């Protein structure tokens, strides 16, 4: 990584973690440390900075193997508590998507719909150990003659279940307003007409990819906190973008990087995988995600010291522009402004509404910090960068 005064390797940091000697701080704590000590001294003393975020991440789901029944079945359709899972994979394998609604959901027929139960809720019920009604159908073959099975299962009964989220941890996201004269029910929450509120959804200075804006330490094989267990970054997420406008600190000014993450659902907890019902929009899953950033040198510690005042996003109109695919910004605002409770848009003061839980994000960063300090969580050295 060029000419640095401090140079540490993953192996060296892991050795310190194993011995219980690693110095770990959260992405909030590192800000003042770097301000007081400067980047070189901070990089010398700190080994790992922990991040965290907890928000609805629609691109989530689980690959589930339901196990064989006698006679055998090659499932072509599968339902969990009446929520369909994609079954166009091998016999008794399926993918349950977080936003999939229950078969009898009235959707938006009476707008705005309530979306009380979907794939995200099934995933939360599974990790909570609840009983799930499982139904699967098939057309029947010589080798797999069974055409229908019905059983009640818990997560323990399923041979395997892997949380597999194609797009999590979005590096920055729009701040949403509604300039139309009607209330709008969106994935950015309820937006009151005539710029009645401005909604945003990131943990700001605690959010993983704001702390490593060029993904210099995050790649395939990075071990992460996922849904309460240890998971991995397994690829770049869908819609991952690197060629974007950035501030002088390298932080993107618009939505940019994303991560594809996976982990063993059986080890996860209902506290960190929470089914969501977004009024008028649909079902989703709030995912607890935390990434440890290794302080390999003073350059990395500078990135992790980024604060809300230095992270910006764009104000986008979800009343008209966004649904029409029009890319237009009504202003650039910092996360410090967004977190203050009001922002100024075109000379008007607008109330801000968070959708990402800072309380939970802090808890993840703190929990990850403790696990690393105790030697229970080792860094995964990435084998491929995005």
């Amino acid at each position, binding site marked *: 990584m060029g000419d640095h005064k401090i140079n540490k390797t993953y192996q060296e940091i892991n050795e310190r973690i194993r011995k219980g000697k690693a110095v770990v701080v959260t992405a909030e704590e590192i800000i003042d440390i770097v301000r007081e000590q400067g980047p070189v001294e901070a990089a010398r003393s700190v080994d790992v900075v922990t991040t965290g975020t907890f928000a609805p991440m629609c691109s989530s789901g689980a690959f589930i193997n339901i196990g064989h029944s006698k006679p055998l079945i090659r499932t072509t359709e599968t339902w969990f508590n009446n929520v369909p899972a994609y079954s166009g994979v091998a016999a008794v394998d399926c993918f349950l998507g977080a936003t999939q609604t229950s078969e009898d959901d009235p959707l938006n027929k009476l707008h705005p719909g309530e979306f009380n139960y979907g794939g995200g809720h099934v995933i939360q019920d599974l990790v909570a150990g609840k009983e799930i009604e499982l139904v699967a159908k098939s057309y029947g073959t010589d080798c797999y003659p069974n055409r229908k099975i019905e059983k009640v299962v818990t997560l323990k009964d399923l041979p395997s279940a892997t949380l597999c989220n194609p797009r999590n941890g979005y590096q920055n996201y729009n701040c949403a307003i509604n300039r139309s004269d009607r209330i709008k029910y969106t994935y950015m929450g309820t937006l009151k007409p005539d710029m009645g509120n401005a909604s945003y959804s990131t943990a700001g200075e605690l959010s993983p990819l704001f702390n490593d804006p060029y993904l210099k330490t995050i790649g395939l094989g990075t071990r992460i906190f996922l849904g309460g267990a240890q998971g991995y970054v397994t690829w770049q997420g869908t819609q991952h973008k690197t060629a974007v406008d950035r501030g002088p600190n390298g932080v993107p000014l618009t939505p940019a990087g994303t991560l594809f993450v996976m982990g063993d659902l059986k080890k996860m907890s209902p506290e960190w995988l929470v089914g969501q*019902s977004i009024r008028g929009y649909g079902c989703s899953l709030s995912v607890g995600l935390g990434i440890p950033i290794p302080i390999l040198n003073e350059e990395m510690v500078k990135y992790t010291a980024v604060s809300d005042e230095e992270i910006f996003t764009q104000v986008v109109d979800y009343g008209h522009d966004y649904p029409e695919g029009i890319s237009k910004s009504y202003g650039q605002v910092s996360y410090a402004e967004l977190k203050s409770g009001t922002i100024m848009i075109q000379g008007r003061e607008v109330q801000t509404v968070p*959708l990402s839980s800072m*309380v*939970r994000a802090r808890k993840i960063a703190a929990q990850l910090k403790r696990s690393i300090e105790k030697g229970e969580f080792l860094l995964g050295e990435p084998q491929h960068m995005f």
Partner: protein
Amino acid sequence: MYSKILILYFPPVVAQNAVVCYLTKDYDLLFNILGAKFSTKEDGIMVLEVTGTRENYKRGVRYLKEQGVRVSYAEQEIWRDEDKCTHCGACTAVCPTGALSVKRPEMEIVFDKEKCSVCELCIVTCPSRAMGLFSKNAESILP
């Protein structure tokens, strides 16, 4: 979970029929009879605490009205399930009185019952379904 205390008035002709048992049989609602007074000469009164999903509750009340029962309500209160609330903040977009607000810099969502107008918007807006409704002062309305 949705729970309300209903005050039901049964005209003498309706009082002869089996009515409230169907709330459980057909609408999956639990009820608890807090008080009842019936007569063949004047309207009977029954105070009923009904618990179930919001959707079933609405269907159940519609059924009662179709049977000729007059329905009125005890005073309501919004409550928050502290275990379910993730402190995301989505409710603060719709709360018209500021009863739900963000405490800074902690970014905790606080619920001030004193400011709540029981508009119920938070119940359908909360993505984690942490907000619920119940009736207060059950004792004061018993016949």
